[in-house]
């Protein structure tokens, strides 16, 4: 990685070894230099970020306490709101929309001295696994510019992997943080459903969506999650139990920790991906963990349940984009025609596909067969995990069945694209935490992540194992030569 970790930056800023202003200058310069190649950012806020940096520097000059993330540049996936910057969700239907309020995560990060430098590209309304569905063009993988960064939070993954920012936030509905983290070689965390307030996150599938961090180290993810977790009166699905100290898990022994490899997630994964997972398991065993293989057959039903539940909830959530109160309006002769013209012009093909799938699954005569059935399958999957957690403490598996695929390789076959999420979806359906830890490289030098899964609200155990995995990980990906060349070093 080309930048210092967030932890090191904040420490250096607090100790006045560097100024927040100089940190932000460099981050913005790199964003501007690399974005023409990566298309990771939809907005870069030089002016706002430098203003915020000056405030941090003046707090420090006066001897005040600037916070745990003092001067740390952060990027937000462009489905989270920050006053003063547009939020597009990667869609034409919201182009030019300037949210009149901040997301709760924005406020929490800023209250610890973090500085938002920009908004990152995503699959339109977070629907996709490659960031090719953005209305503003695809984001590229900084390790190999002919490949996708994964998705839907591809811009956030790409910007952290390229070293532009040490932390970016993403949202994960079916794997949208973990899969791009794996494909770009960075850490990505989906917390327990309800850990992090979703106020100010544009809703995709409300019973599944969760915000989490991308970082280059496990420690930075632990710190970020500590900062953004907690109950929020503005999100009644948020949970009011403290997340506890996750950073304190570093260095704790994993001796005797029972680790299960999920059989169902290995079946169907590429041999090199499975090989990396086996190496990881051996590494954990050497540290004293008891590793066993464990079958959770219910997880096989995850993909089908997800692709009914998520589109159904999306079709309802996206009904608000009707050209009346905000965003695009294509004027027709009456209100209904205006609704139809606006939505037809504003939404891209994948969003339309999911809205229709969801509308169909919720329509009279099909509701019981599809949506209600899928919600029952969720119960099955949850109890499958719960049974597994009676035998083991944590689970590990591949994150994605393959490493980063070529741009355009799957974009014509929706089902093939949906299969990218087969290992990540079950955690969203169960509401459990899961994260991707970069572990190895395939024979082409592409990153392979290992997924760590834990019971609901047990992020502590998940991070303990993640810290241990990070210790034994092999191989840091080499950035594409043209990216390496363009990076401005501080």
């Amino acid at each position, binding site marked *: 990685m080309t930048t210092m970790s967030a932890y090191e930056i904040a420490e250096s800023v607090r100790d006045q070894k560097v100024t927040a202003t100089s940190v932000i200058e460099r981050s913005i310069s790199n964003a501007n230099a690399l974005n023409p190649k990566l298309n990771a950012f939809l907005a870069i806020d030089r002016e706002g970020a430098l203003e915020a940096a000056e405030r941090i520097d003046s707090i420090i000059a006066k001897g005040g306490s600037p916070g745990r993330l003092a001067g740390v540049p952060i990027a937000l996936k462009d489905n989270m709101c920050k006053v003063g910057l547009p939020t597009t969700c990667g869609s034409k239907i919201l182009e030019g929309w300037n949210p009149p309020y901040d997301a709760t995560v924005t406020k929490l990060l800023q209250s610890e001295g973090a500085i938002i430098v920009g908004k990152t590209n995503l699959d339109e309304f977070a629907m996709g696994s490659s960031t090719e569905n953005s209305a503003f063009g695809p984001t590229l993988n900084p390790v190999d510019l002919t490949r996708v960064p994964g998705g839907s939070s591809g811009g956030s993954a790409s910007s952290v992997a390229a070293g532009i920012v040490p932390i970016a936030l993403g949202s994960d509905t079916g794997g949208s943080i973990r899969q791009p983290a794996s494909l770009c070689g960075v850490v990505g965390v989906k917390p327990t459903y309800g850990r992090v307030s979703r106020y100010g996150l544009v809703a995709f599938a409300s019973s599944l969506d969760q915000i989490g961090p991308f970082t280059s180290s496990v420690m930075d993810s632990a710190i970020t999650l500590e900062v953004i977790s907690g109950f929020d009166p503005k999100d009644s699905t948020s949970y009011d139990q403290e997340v506890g100290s996750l950073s304190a898990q570093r260095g704790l022994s994993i001796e005797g920790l029972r680790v299960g490899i999920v059989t169902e997630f290995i079946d169907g994964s590429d041999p090199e991906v499975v090989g990396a997972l086996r190496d990881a398991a051996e590494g954990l065993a050497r540290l004293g963990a008891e590793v066993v293989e464990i079958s959770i057959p219910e997880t096989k039903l995850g993909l089908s349940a997800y692709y009914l539940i998520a589109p159904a909830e999306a079709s309802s959530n996206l009904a608000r984009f009707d050209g009346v109160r*905000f965003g695009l*309006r294509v*004027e027709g*002769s009456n209100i209904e025609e*205006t609704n139809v*013209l606006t939505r037809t012009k504003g939404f891209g093909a994948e969003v339309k596909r999911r809205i229709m799938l969801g509308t169909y699954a919720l329509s009279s005569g099909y509701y019981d067969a*599809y949506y209600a*059935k899928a919600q029952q399958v*969720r119960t099955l999957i949850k109890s499958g995990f719960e049974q597994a957690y009676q035998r083991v403490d944590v689970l590990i598996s591949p994150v994605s069945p393959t490493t980063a695929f070529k741009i355009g390789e799957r974009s014509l076959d929706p089902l093939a694209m949906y299969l990218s999420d087969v290992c990540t979806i079950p955690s969203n359906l169960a*509401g459990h935490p899961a994260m991707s830890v970069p572990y190895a490289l395939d024979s082409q030098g592409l990153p392979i992540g290992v997924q760590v899964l834990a019971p609901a609200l047990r992020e502590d155990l998940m991070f303990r194992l993640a810290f241990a995995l990070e210790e034994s990980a092999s191989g840091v990906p080499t950035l594409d030569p043209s990216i390496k060349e363009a990076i401005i070093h501080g």
Partner: protein
Amino acid sequence: MSSRISPKEVAHVAMLARLSLTDEEAELYASQLSSVLDHASDIESLDIHDLEVTAHPLGLTNRTRMDIVVAGLSQREALSQAPDEAQGMFSVPPVLGEPS
């Protein structure tokens, strides 16, 4: 190619969702949605009608806040992003009347 959903049904669903499709789009979406619904046949065949549904993973329900007045968006802020406004309200084309 299976046809769980016909182009005619796709057009009906699009109408419900306030989307307008060309005939070619309806054909394409019919085949793509059919393949996703085909994949879902694994859950269709399950006999689990007695099982509870999971809507919230942690089972939180009916959470209310204290009945305390807090400031919301001002009228000006709420209207600031409106495509069209009149007299402090969102303005829209006629709700009643003949479509063109």
